[in-house]
């Protein structure tokens, strides 16, 4: 019987404008590197993506791959080529060489996507849920999740929710769960939308559905099960067959560090655009660029009061709303 060991390999305190770092065992072939505390702080994700970028540039033999999370990176390695101590030492070095959080610039594209709110496909998914899984789900009353999201957040009406979704760029913090699924968070804290997930989960979701779970937005890359509340539908973000030029080099449209901006279309237009995507007539609008973390952090205080006020309204409404 082995002596009890800790799951923590090493820890470093916050220093030089960089967050604290915790290295954790994730089996004998991976290390989970965590940054800062368990806080909903996008700055941690900016730092994660900067580290991930640096690791791609400077990768020792035996480092197999890195996979970011919200405030962590899973580093997979071959222990026969790269010893754990050497890996941790290398990661220390990468962290030391990095600039402080406030000085980081991250490669970041701005991806424009059309969005049809409360379309018949997502409503169909909710109907199916009511009919086959849970007919008394409070989040699916009336055959849509939209009204529940409105109520839970204390919005006056649907239009106020739609305005919130359209008013901000969404930060793609990392890709995961399914191939190509972006975990996205509003960059403007005033436009935060928070909502509990399904209970139990849904068995079908249409391709391109936009869902919200907790503080996170996600686009479903393929028809699949899911647990996020559905508010509308956008275009394909994953196509293995490469029917559109956007997918010829990589079947995934979105990357970690991208920003997504939605613009509103009606459902007929969206369905027409779907056809155009498949026929390679549609061109996704993608602007190359970088994201200036310092400028963003300087801007944040100017909206902090308003964000806090809206947060209070949200919490008051949530307290009055049943959880699924």
């Amino acid at each position, binding site marked *: *019987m*082995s002596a*009890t*060991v*800790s*799951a*923590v390999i090493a820890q470093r305190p916050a220093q030089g404008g960089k967050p604290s770092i915790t290295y*954790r*065992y*994730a*089996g*004998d*072939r*991976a290390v*989970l590197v*965590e940054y800062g505390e*368990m*806080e*909903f702080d996008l700055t941690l994700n900016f730092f994660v993506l900067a580290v*991930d970028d640096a690791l791609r540039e400077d990768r020792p033999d035996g480092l*197999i*791959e*890195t*996979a*970011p*999370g*919200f*405030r*962590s*990176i*899973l580093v*997979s390695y071959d*222990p*026969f080529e790269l010893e*754990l101590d050497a890996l941790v030492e290398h990661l220390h070095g990468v962290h030391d060489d990095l600039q402080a959080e406030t000085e980081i610039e991250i490669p970041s594209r701005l991806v424009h996507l059309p969005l049809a709110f409360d379309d018949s496909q997502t409503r169909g998914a909710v109907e199916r849920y009511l009919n086959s899984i849970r007919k008394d789900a409070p989040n699916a009353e009336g055959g849509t999740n939209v009204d529940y999201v409105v109520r839970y957040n204390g919005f006056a009406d649907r239009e106020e929710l739609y305005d919130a979704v359209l008013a901000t760029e969404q930060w793609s913090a*990392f*890709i*995961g*769960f*399914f*191939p*190509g*699924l972006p*975990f996205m968070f509003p960059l403007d804290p005033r436009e935060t939308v928070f909502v*509990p997930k399904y209970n139990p989960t849904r068995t079908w979701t249409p391709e391109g559905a936009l869902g919200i779970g*907790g*503080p*996170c937005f996600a686009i479903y*890359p*393929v028809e699949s099960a899911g647990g996020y509340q559905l508010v509308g539908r956008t275009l394909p973000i994953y196509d*293995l067959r490469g029917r559109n030029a956007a997918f010829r080099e990589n079947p*995934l449209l979105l990357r*970690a560090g991208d920003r997504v901006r939605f613009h509103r279309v009606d459902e007929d237009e969206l369905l027409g655009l779907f056809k155009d995507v498949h026929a390679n007539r549609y061109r996704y609008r993608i602007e190359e660029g970088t994201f200036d973390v310092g400028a963003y952090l300087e801007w944040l205080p100017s909206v902090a009061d308003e964000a806090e006020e809206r947060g209070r309204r949200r919490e008051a409404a949530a307290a009055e709303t049943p*959880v699924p």
Partner: protein
Amino acid sequence: MRAVEILEGGIQTTVQDYPGRRGLLAQGFFPAGPMDHFAFRAANLLVGNDASAAGLEVTLGNVALRLRGDATVAVCGAEAPVTVDGEELPLWESRRLEGGSELHIGVSPGPGFRLYVAFSGGIDVPPLFGSRATYTMGALGGLEGRALVQGDRFGLLPESGDGAGRRLKPSARPVYEREWEVRAMRGPQAAPDYLTEADMQTFFGRPWPVDRNSNRTGIRLESHKFEWARRSGGIAGGHPSNILDNSYPVGAVNVNGDLPVILGPDGPTAGGFVVAATVAHADFWKIGQFRPVGDTVRFREVTIEEAIGLETAVNEILSPANLE
């Protein structure tokens, strides 16, 4: 051209290769590959293939196929009646078969749950992102990203071995059981920050029944009320098993609410649940042989040094020195 025709596909028979599709975790792809890498690698070794050659993973049995052209064939894995044109073909042995031969794999009575079939040269399906493995969650790889059905046909790549029949020494063969013991390392999220030390002792102390809803995405165990070191998941969610989403290692034992699940090779790459322990890579093959009803698993805690030692031992067993 040498080929194989599927006469009966069984419950779930897929094309796999080892170690599967690496390097795409950050895009949302788990590696896929054989659920039992030991039996799969043994079958390839027996027919003289490279370790990277693709073969078949058979779930439970009830599979029949016909060879077009000669091939050396080996079947390894769960105890099951296996015949070639009505004559017994022992497991863990390779044999030269003539074109037209029919291979039948009956239903395995256990212990064990999966069988692997290697053909000299390996299965010729187009590699996708460097692997031929079928990834059910992404519906890609293998033959059209799906399990094989009657009437499917695939080619075989040119052979390199000498075609001689060989067998794996009995001392080198794994022992399948109904009460499994699997070596695992604690973490990344364990005691004292997420679970209590008493929880960890329970986790490593008790046998866990394998749930019927287990498959290549994960092995579900039995719900258990852990004490938890935290009262809730805080900003990540109400339940103390909730964390801000991070990437999962292969072999992660995550705790979904109260339910521990061992993530399989087709599992989700990321999510927001505590991972209490991670199965040592050398023992990961065992989860492919768990029978979904009736089997139990007990986790035994090992250090990273012990886990790497186990891996060295497995690699030594799977060497030509153990063929006769």
